[in-house]
């Protein structure tokens, strides 16, 4: 602090300006400014179908949404997806993590192949399963028929009530690799001594799981649940190709319309910009709590652990 003016022009300042200013500018221009602007628009009745200058309407859009049955239906559906997907994913992930935690020849290859679905495009995954579940020529029908589980081909995606279930199955298939990796790392960090000591004390396999494995894995489950909550809550691509109908201008399947698809429909199909902007802020509020837990964790690791 002895000589501030000189410090200002030192090469450190120039370095910082060159590497940080573009980042700050891009984030400000493409993320934060639009976020504020979106909020502003949520307070207007902007609608691109109607030629009129948008007028400020206060919180009318928010009120309209909250009083609308469709909004609650869609919100309920989004949470249904989350509530079914999370346990499904955790069970699959825990089972696979336990298996991959064993030592056996070929484990690396099995692990690599097991994590593949997570790294493929979501729209492809939705298509893969849509084709697999196809009622006329689908492979699942062929498989079950050949092994005698069904007497005739089923239309798996016809019954509206079943659609959400299949959406969660495909979401689980797309995402289970992440919790598996987290849980596997958690398992591998449990020292063998603990199990050995428990064995010496005569603890059964079940009580070893109950008193050692599960408690020590809780933090890993925590991370996995938060990240998977965000992923399932924001589900979009998979539904688009599995059940939504797919085509850009066409109508959207009402039985699998979740919050993100509803938001897309409001803004980019119905062109009700004000209403859609309000919805996006309601979605922000819904995911804020969970998101904050995540960012605080990342932040603590990133800056303060130095």
């Amino acid at each position, binding site marked *: 602090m002895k000589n501030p003016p000189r410090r200002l022009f030192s090469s450190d300042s120039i*370095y910082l300006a*060159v590497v940080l200013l*573009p980042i700050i500018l891009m984030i400000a221009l493409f993320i934060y400014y639009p976020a504020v602007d979106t909020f*502003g628009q949520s307070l207007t009745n902007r609608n691109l179908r109607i030629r009129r200058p948008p007028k400020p309407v206060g919180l009318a859009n928010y009120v309209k949404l909250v009083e609308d049955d469709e909004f609650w239906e869609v919100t309920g559906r989004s949470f249904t997806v989350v509530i079914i997907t999370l346990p499904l994913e955790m069970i699959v992930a825990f089972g696979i993590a336990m298996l991959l935690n064993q030592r056996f020849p070929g484990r690396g290859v099995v692990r690599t192949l097991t994590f593949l679905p997570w790294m493929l495009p979501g729209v492809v995954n939705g298509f893969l399963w849509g084709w697999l579940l196809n009622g006329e020529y689908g492979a699942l029908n062929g498989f079950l*028929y050949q092994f005698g589980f069904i007497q005739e081909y089923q239309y798996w995606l016809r019954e509206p009530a079943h659609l959400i279930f299949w959406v969660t199955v495909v979401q689980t298939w797309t995402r289970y690799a*992440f919790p598996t990796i987290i849980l596997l790392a958690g398992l591998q960090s449990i020292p063998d001594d603990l199990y050995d000591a428990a064995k010496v004390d005569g603890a059964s396999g079940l009580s070893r799981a109950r008193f050692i494995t599960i408690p020590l894995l809780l933090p890993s489950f925590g991370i996995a649940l938060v990240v998977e909550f965000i992923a399932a809550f924001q589900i*979009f691509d998979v539904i688009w190709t599995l059940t939504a109908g797919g085509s*850009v201008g066409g109508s959207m399947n009402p039985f699998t319309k979740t919050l993100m698809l509803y938001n897309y429909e409001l803004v980019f199909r119905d062109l009700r910009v004000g209403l859609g902007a309000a919805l996006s802020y309601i979605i922000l509020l819904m995911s804020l709590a969970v*998101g904050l837990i995540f960012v605080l964790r990342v932040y603590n690791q990133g800056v303060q652990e130095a």
Partner: protein
Amino acid sequence: MNLGLRGQERLRLAVIYSLCAVVLLWALAPIYWVLVSSISTRQELYARPYKIWFPSQPTLESYQTIFTQGAKFRSGGFSPTAHLMGTGLRNSAIISVASAGIVTLMATGAGYAFARMDFKGKNLIFLLIMLMIPLPIWVSLIALFFLMSQLELIDTLLGLILIFVTLLLPLSVWLMTTFVRDIPSEIQDAARVDGADRWRLVYSIVLPLARPGMVAVFLVAMLTTWNNFLIPLIFTRTDDSQPLTIVLTLFIGQYEVAWEDMSAAAVVTMLPPFLIALFFQRYLVRGLTMGAVK
């Protein structure tokens, strides 16, 4: 039952391998089936009720069709999509490689700053970048659409690259910050005493040591960009900028497109991520789990 040690080990492996078979069936069956569908002849693909699990005459005809004539309709004739696969492939490649390259460079420079330098507002800037992660993208997306139209960046590769780089920044910066922090600082301090300025330091000492981290950031960025669907769905209109994920949904949307052709398009769309995931998975896992696993 007394099996003896070797017998017990054999039994253990037998159980493990049968469980592995179940897991691999779950993980790979859908991928296997789309591959088979894309190289099957029509008769075999539509066989029922018994499916043909291995095509007896594998053919690449569907791939040839979608690239040269456009996707076949089930009732005959072709959809006018012959050029879309080619332009889609080109657009996907340009967008993902350019975004990944740019974000890797930016994140390396910033990562060094956050890991090794002290400056005013450091924590605040870092927090502002990281706050993007839990922010549902829709909050920005709606007004961003109008901003991009004003800037005349809708339906351009440049517009997509700018958006992707911005969206990739938080994860990339976070990763590079932790990677640089893991490099022993003694070497850098020594160079600093010798009077090397920051640029020289980053270029000649940090870059070579941070290379595995940069590869991870690049591959993760490339994969996420290639796989993304929502951004091009909103910001593209024509074959000038539509990537493969969009082209694939155009096929799916047209309900009469033949399944073998859609399968071929799906295989082309997932091939690069598939190969990267197969051969560079270590890097991806490290990058995509954000250091939750060390």
